[in-house]
């Protein structure tokens, strides 16, 4: 029997082992070299990035722009000393800055002075320059002859202000008038505007072959009829001659804010004669408090849920200062049963920067809806979708007139700013009111 060759491990050729060792040594060398290259590159990049940039800001950002040069009335060119003020206005009041620049204020002041001195040529030139600056001009109106029934303006005369100046007045007015930014505003060149209204229509589900009950709602309409609003004030001749004085700011703020404040008073209380066609509380259903003149949290809950659901999502609370005070002192309990957590005021002062529209500062929130203080009659609390409930009819344009002679003895030039507007409740069901509130319990 032949002996079987037995081997525990197969013998390896020494040449193969040597070859493998050579390959391994080569790979190690390669790896070390790659690592060294990477570290060197990294160190170089790091050193480059840590090195400060010694170039001037001008070279990095490009040349600093020169301040805007404003042409002066003389033949030379000067820097307007108010340039900084206008630059700040761009940041702090961009809405107003659209209509205010050194150029436009210059021509607005020229227009005011021209009006003062009865210098029609200067008035026309200033108006043309302002139109040129803004690319604005008034639309030509073709209205036909004025008759008793045409609805056009009758017996109104005066100069229309240049549009940029009128816009600056309008911006100031909007900041003072709170309800204007909450209600619906219609514009019309006509004196009147008729708005159709209708009660709710009803839909039905029907069996085959059946027909729906006649449910056409009653149609009606509300006639908005503009009323005149005017403010008159005087300025000394020295004021008007002082070229450095901010004439545009003075005139727009005085006229605009006075008109805006009075508009709110008329809409809330209809205090004057004539006044708006109907106030914001006209025809609004009252919700009676449990004990007369006493406001409780339970009353407030009932009040809120009496407002139809479709108006709640866009509702806004309106009240005067007295009722706002009651709401701030009135407390509600939060949590229930064994998890009563305590009490908190119904109305907590909100961040003062919260505004709705132009002038409507939010005082706080009740049931998630904002509270705005307006000149409602004392004891009144209103909640509703104001955009659907109330409409303001506005006139495009503000008239201005001046007289040298009326203030002759006091060396004063008198100014009259005139505009017309109206307001009326369109959908009384979109709001609810509480009245006579005087105390809390």
């Amino acid at each position, binding site marked *: 029997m032949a002996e079987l060759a037995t081997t525990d491990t197969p013998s390896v050729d020494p040449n193969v082992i040597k070859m493998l060792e050579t390959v391994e040594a080569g790979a190690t060398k390669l790896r070390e070299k790659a690592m060294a290259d990477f570290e060197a590159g990294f160190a170089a990049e790091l050193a480059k990035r840590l090195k400060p940039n010694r170039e001037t800001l001008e070279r990095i950002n490009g040349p600093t722009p020169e301040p805007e040069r404003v042409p002066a009335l003389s033949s030379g060119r000067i820097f307007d000393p108010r340039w900084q003020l206008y630059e700040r206005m761009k940041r702090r009041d961009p809405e107003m800055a659209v209509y205010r620049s050194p150029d436009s204020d210059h021509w607005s002041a020229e227009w005011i002075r021209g009006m003062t001195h009865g210098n029609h040529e200067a008035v026309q030139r200033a108006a043309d320059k302002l139109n040129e600056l803004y690319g604005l001009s008034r639309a030509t109106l073709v209205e036909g002859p004025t008759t008793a029934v045409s609805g056009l303006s009758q017996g109104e005369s005066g100069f229309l202000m240049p549009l940029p100046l009128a816009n600056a007045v309008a911006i100031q007015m909007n900041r003072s008038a709170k309800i204007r930014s909450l209600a619906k505003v219609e514009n019309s060149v006509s004196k009147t505007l008729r708005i159709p209204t209708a*009660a709710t229509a009803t839909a039905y589900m029907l069996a085959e072959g059946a027909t729906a009950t006649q449910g056409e709602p*009653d149609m*009606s309409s509300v*006639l908005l009829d503009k009323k005149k609003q005017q403010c008159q004030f005087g300025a000394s001749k020295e004021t008007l001659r002082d070229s450095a004085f901010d004439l545009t700011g003075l005139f727009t703020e005085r006229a605009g804010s006075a008109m805006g404040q009075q508009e709110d008073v008329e809409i809330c209380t209809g205090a004057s004669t004539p006044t708006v066609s109907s106030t914001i509380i006209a025809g609004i259903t009252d*919700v009676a408090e*449990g*004990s*007369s003149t006493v406001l409780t949290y339970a*009353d407030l809950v009932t009040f809120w849920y009496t407002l139809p659901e479709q108006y709640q999502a866009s509702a806004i609370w309106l009240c005067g200062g007295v009722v706002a005070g009651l709401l701030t002192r009135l407390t509600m309990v939060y949590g229930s049963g064994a998890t009563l957590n305590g009490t908190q005021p119904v109305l907590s002062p909100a961040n003062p920067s919260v505004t709705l529209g132009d002038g409507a500062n939010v005082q706080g929130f009740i049931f998630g809806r904002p509270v705005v203080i307006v000149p409602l009659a004392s004891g009144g609390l209103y909640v509703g979708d104001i955009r659907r409930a109330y409409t303001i009819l506005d006139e495009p344009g503000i008239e201005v007139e001046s007289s040298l002679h009326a203030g002759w003895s006091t060396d004063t030039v008198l100014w009259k700013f005139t505009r017309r507007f109206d307001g009326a409740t369109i959908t009384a069901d979109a709001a609810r009111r509480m009245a*006579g509130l005087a105390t809390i319990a």
Partner: protein
Amino acid sequence: MAEFKVGDTVRNTSNGTLFVVVALPRPKDRKTADLGDPRVTVKYRDNPSQVRQVDPALYVATTAEEVREADAAAKAKTKAA
């Protein structure tokens, strides 16, 4: 809408307060800007100077017995005070 007459005593269904009807809605054939006023004018029974114009759907008629009971309760409350 509940049938109320001027002078009726009515009760607010949410807070139970008693009111007296002062005026009824204008007739529907008299069309006005707000499509005929659906509100009823009421005054507080215990404070007649306070008048409200309310939605009649939230009020119910009262019985003489109910009014008597309310008056007796008010009287007792005043006496206790």
